[in-house]
């Protein structure tokens, strides 16, 4: 199911509400409804369009395409400072590639896209090794799809499949083990294109 990301104010309490509404591992339908309701509420109360401050350090991620809040030309560049402004998130899960439970920390992908002002849900993720995968069929609202930069307390590097990595909470749903999800768990992420 596609998520249409709407204009949401950068009201932290509101986003926190959203996060709390959606972050729970309980997949009750009522919670989903609450998330959507919150979003509608926020749309109603949205005021001026937000802006994104430009990066100051090493650019870790570039978001291009149909976005509303670019900060470098018509692209939204993110560095670790900008990532720090977004709500921090994390979870523990097993993965198809590692042994045992891993702890990942980062930001929610949907928050990043919201910050960039992505206008559509047609997203491509591009890795440093020129690998490209489509995230269009991923429900970013339903599950806590993470943009991870720490694994088991250590920062990710290129050699450890970082510095940014898309991670799914594999333990939460068995469908993550399908080809489409596993192909979308892009590591060594450098860019995202919004169509």
């Amino acid at each position, binding site marked *: 199911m596609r998520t249409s990301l709407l204009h949401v104010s950068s009201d932290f309490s509101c986003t926190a509400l959203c996060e709390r509404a959606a972050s729970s591992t309980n997949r009750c339908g009522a919670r989903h409804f609450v998330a959507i309701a919150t979003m509608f509420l926020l749309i109603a109360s949205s005021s001026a369009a937000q802006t994104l401050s430009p990066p100051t350090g090493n650019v870790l991620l570039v978001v291009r395409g149909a976005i509303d809040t670019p900060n470098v030309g018509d692209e939204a560049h993110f560095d670790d400072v900008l990532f720090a402004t977004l709500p921090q998130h994390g979870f523990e899960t097993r993965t198809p*590639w590692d042994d045992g439970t891993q702890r990942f920390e980062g930001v929610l992908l949907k928050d990043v896209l919201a910050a960039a002002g992505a206008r559509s849900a047609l997203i491509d993720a591009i890795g440093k090794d020129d690998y490209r995968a489509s995230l269009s069929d991923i429900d970013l609202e339903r599950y806590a799809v993470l943009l991870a930069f720490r694994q088991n307390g250590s920062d990710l590097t290129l050699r450890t499949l970082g510095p940014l990595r898309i991670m799914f909470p594999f333990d939460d749903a068995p469908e993550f083990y399908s080809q489409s999800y596993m192909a979308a768990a892009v590591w060594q992420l450098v860019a995202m294109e919004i169509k």
Partner: protein
Amino acid sequence: MERLYIAISSVAALICAALVFYLMFQINNTRLTLEADGVTEFNFIQQSDHNFDSFAIELMKWQQRALIDPDTPRDFTTRYDILWSMLFMPRAQWTGSLSELPETREMIATSREFIIDIEPLMKPNARIGASDIEYMVKTAKELGTSVYQIGLGLYQAKSALRDDISERMDRLTGAFWFFGASLVVAGITLFSSLTSAYRRVSSLLRESSTAQRQLASALEEVTDGDIERRKQNRFIATASHDLRQPLHALGLNLATLRRHVPSTLGRRILDNASRSTEALNQLLSSVLDVSRLDAAIIEVKRSDLSLDEIFEQLRRTFTPEANERGLALDVSLSNLVVHCDRVLLERILANLVSNALHYTRQGSVSLAATADEQEVVISVKDTGPGIPERERAAIFDEYYQMETPDGTRTAGLGLGLSIVHRLSQLLDVGLSVDSNSDGGTRFDLRLARGSSSMLELPVVQPSAGCRDAIRFDGLTALVIDDDRDVREGMHLLLEEHSCRVMTAESASEARAAIVAEETIPDLIIADYRLRDDQTGAAAIVEVREEVNEDIPALIVTGDTSPTRLREASASGFRLLNKPVVPDELFAAISELTGRRT
């Protein structure tokens, strides 16, 4: 039961079809899985190859740029890090089945060695010579190629497998359609054969029930006809029996009366009366004959007979009648001998002659015999109206009478020819009838020749005149009969012939009479049907027991029913039928007592 078989086979067929379906479904799934599978490996192959290539390209680009600007950023290190992560990060899961291949493990091992080898050159300020670059580029390209080869091999293997499965799927689908079609054909054939079998069975059932019904009705008809006929015969037999008693008495009385009639006219009248009685007698005899034939109690005693004798007897018997009718009776003697039963043959010929006389208005009736080597043919010819062809078979039926020339009914019951027919069958002699178109009938009887050396001595028949001469002096006869007139008649007749007579109604009366008169009779003459359902045979036995002597006995019976005749015959006593011909009675008495005058 059939339905059960049909049900079972249908279910079995359905199960087979379902199994085939299931198999196809599974195989298709495998094919799809196989198609989908390999994406992981393919990704890995693609990515690995690309990574090696990119590393080589970046190295070469840097080499170019570094000639101009030695501080060109070392972008190739990024590529190196990527390679490093590819080779050293645990990822068994995403190499998929590749990890099992020895080529993969070898490639990974070699690559790892290479990566570790060149790590020093990836340090920020490491000195990289042209040969280093050359080496790195060459090795990277080699490794990329090997990855590609692995991928190619895998792809081919997977494709081949997929194609194989597809082919199998196609074959299976073909087989399935064929199976389905043959199943349908088999089903239709089975169904149609069952239907036709069922139809055949039901038509057969219908036919058989129709046949059964027809058979049953035919049987009914026959039985009814049979029953009817038997009823008729029984009726006639009963009626005859009731008629016989008075006839018997009449005959006895007339015989006795003769002596007491002085005038010639009186005696002539008496003769007329006697003849009438005789005629009645004949009629009843023919009915008796039929009964006896029905009862099958007639014994055939064959012997060599002189035809001349028999013919002579017939002439004597029938000449009066022929004269009366104004017909000539021609009897030709032939000196021939036949082998046959005397009594029965006489009966046949008597019936034929009598019949001929009845149906001829004028002219003659002739009796003659001819012979060849083996057979004798006796012919009875008449100059009557003849028998039309269509009636020639019917004349031998019981009660059948042809129309006389003057339209009147003849005397008789129509049994004569039927008796002739049945007797001829019993004797196994050939009987045929022929007629001329202008009238005249001829009956032919074919018999076996006999040898003259074995001729039987003729039984002397006492003539009417001789009869009076028979005397039974000193003979005491016991007559047991429940009919008073018969008793009287017998009494008178026997007394005429000097016979002493004791009469009784029943066995007990007889015994009482014996005791009272203190006389043991020399002969017992008993009626078969006595009062209180006692049989004459039983009465005789009782009397014999009483006197403790085996007194000679004979039974006289008016019964014509076959059963009674059989019983009477089975009793072992000499049997005479009512109305008794006095001559026969005397002959029997003579035989039994050994007395004659």
